[in-house]
């Protein structure tokens, strides 16, 4: 992607590299946070879980959950992936008691991962009042130990990073998305694992993308993933292109795709993932976030947070999120670093934005300069410094019904 301006940079010199440290986990991964997760297992337990967690929002207690009462292999697996995520140190499960969720199975998986876990069942714990009291007591008894947990040195090669855009505008594909693409190249070169997503926002880019595949079989799998998204959305009659995109200058889905695709940088693509599948080796991966099989359960990804949740389930420690119109989202388990495509929105929403990519359009910095600043922001977040969305208390989370088939042959040639 071209930089508009080979101009002298007036950006401040890069800060000294931050010494990153992580929380070692039994499975060999390292966390960049040590969250205590409060997870409700049906919407009927949501209120109690929120009441338990809310006094400790600034203390690393994060709220997630699955609202459905009907069984879902997908939700069961994603909840297990999230509850054993490297950024999680302990888990309190909040069940109503009669939902279909396999709570005992989830609890066993968490315990087997070496984490402290408790299962609170509202129907046998004294209803709302008794459950909130018991839950808060369990949380309070663990906060000090979680905060004082030992850490070990952490390198960029320990990190899994997801890239995502939301509220894209006509400059996203000129400024901040190519800058994230450059950061992605730098991170992959440093041995990190990077994933990009949302095949419905790659429609039109499949030929170029397939040419970057590590093997011909993977090229076919990448193309097939985009074709699946195209046919799925065509059947739905509603694509990933909306009024906000149009308002800020994007004219077609494929033009939006071109901008979104720029986030993937230029390195070879090592594989296709599905939610919950962890990248087997460092490198760059595409995550396929569109349901398999016939169209059911409605729109595959109802908002940006759903896709982010799926990347976190595949092990992302943090998310690079770009916006043009100005998104404010964070995430419950993974810090979100937000970059904006234009200085107008950066000025208007500076408290929410970690990186201003508008400097590229302003002729102040080049794409590579902003890309390096993004890598600096990754180092800072991975060293424990809160991102803007974390500092503001954002904990967006959503999980809904989906179905995926196992990865096909050729998806992970590594």
């Amino acid at each position, binding site marked *: 992607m071209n930089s*508009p301006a080979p101009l002298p940079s007036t950006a401040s010199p890069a800060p000294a590299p931050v010494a990153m440290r992580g929380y070692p986990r039994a499975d060999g991964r390292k966390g960049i946070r040590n969250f205590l997760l409060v997870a409700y297992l049906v919407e009927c337990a949501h209120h109690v879980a929120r009441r338990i967690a809310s006094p400790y929002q600034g203390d690393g207690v994060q709220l997630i959950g699955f609202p459905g009462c009907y069984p879902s292999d997908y939700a069961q697996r994603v909840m297990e992936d999230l509850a054993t995520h490297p950024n999680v140190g302990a888990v309190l499960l909040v069940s109503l008691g009669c939902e279909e969720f396999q709570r005992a199975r989830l609890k066993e998986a968490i315990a087997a991962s070496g984490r402290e876990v408790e299962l609170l069942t509202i129907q046998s714990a004294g209803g709302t009042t008794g459950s909130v009291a018991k839950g808060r007591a369990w949380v309070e008894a663990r906060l000090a130990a979680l905060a004082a947990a030992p850490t070990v040195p952490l390198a960029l090669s320990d990190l899994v990073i997801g890239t995502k855009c939301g509220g894209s505008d*006509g*400059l996203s*594909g000129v400024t901040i998305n190519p800058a994230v693409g450059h950061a992605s190249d730098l991170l992959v070169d440093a041995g990190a694992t990077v994933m990009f997503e949302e095949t419905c926002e790659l429609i039109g880019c499949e030929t170029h993308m397939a040419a970057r595949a590590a093997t011909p079989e993977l090229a076919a799998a990448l193309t097939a993933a985009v074709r699946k998204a195209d046919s799925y959305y065509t059947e739905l009659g509603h694509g990933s292109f909306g*009024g906000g995109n*149009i308002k800020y*200058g994007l004219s*077609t889905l494929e033009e939006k795709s071109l901008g979104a695709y720029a986030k993937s940088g230029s390195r070879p693509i090592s594989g296709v993932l599905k939610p919950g599948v962890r990248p087997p080796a460092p490198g760059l991966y595409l995550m396929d976030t569109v349901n398999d099989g016939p169209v059911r359960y409605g729109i595959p990804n109802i908002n940006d947070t759903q896709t982010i949740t799926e990347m976190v389930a595949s092990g992302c420690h943090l998310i690079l999120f770009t916006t043009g119109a100005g998104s404010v989202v964070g995430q419950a388990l993974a810090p979100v670093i937000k970059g904006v495509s*234009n200085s107008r929105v950066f000025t208007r929403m500076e408290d929410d934005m970690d990186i201003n990519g508008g400097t590229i359009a302003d002729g102040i910095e080049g794409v590579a300069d902003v890309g390096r600043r993004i890598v600096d922001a990754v180092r800072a977040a991975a060293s424990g410094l809160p991102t803007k969305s974390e500092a503001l208390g954002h904990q967006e989370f959503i999980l809904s019904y989906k179905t995926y088939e196992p990865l096909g042959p050729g998806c992970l040639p590594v």
Partner: protein
Amino acid sequence: MGEPGAANMIRLAAGDNVGIALVDIAAGSTAATLDGLALRALEAIPQGHKIALVPIAPGADIVRLRMAVGIARAEIPAGRLVHVHNVASRYLNNDQDHYE
């Protein structure tokens, strides 16, 4: 050649038939790239929006960064705004989506 900072438009690749406004470009003013391409904007081109760099025939591709990002619905004279009113998608047109 433009002075540093004088560019108000970028052509992402040679051969593209649209430029992208880096700032709001007023109707009647000059749209110019850093490498010296310049033309008159026949209407306001808001930041992030596209301007036709050459006359674009009906049915021709809209080319941005060497990629076809849409099809011209009508003749688009050089200097005109290129957007949903004169561009169709090869994929979805999202007629049900709302545009403020």
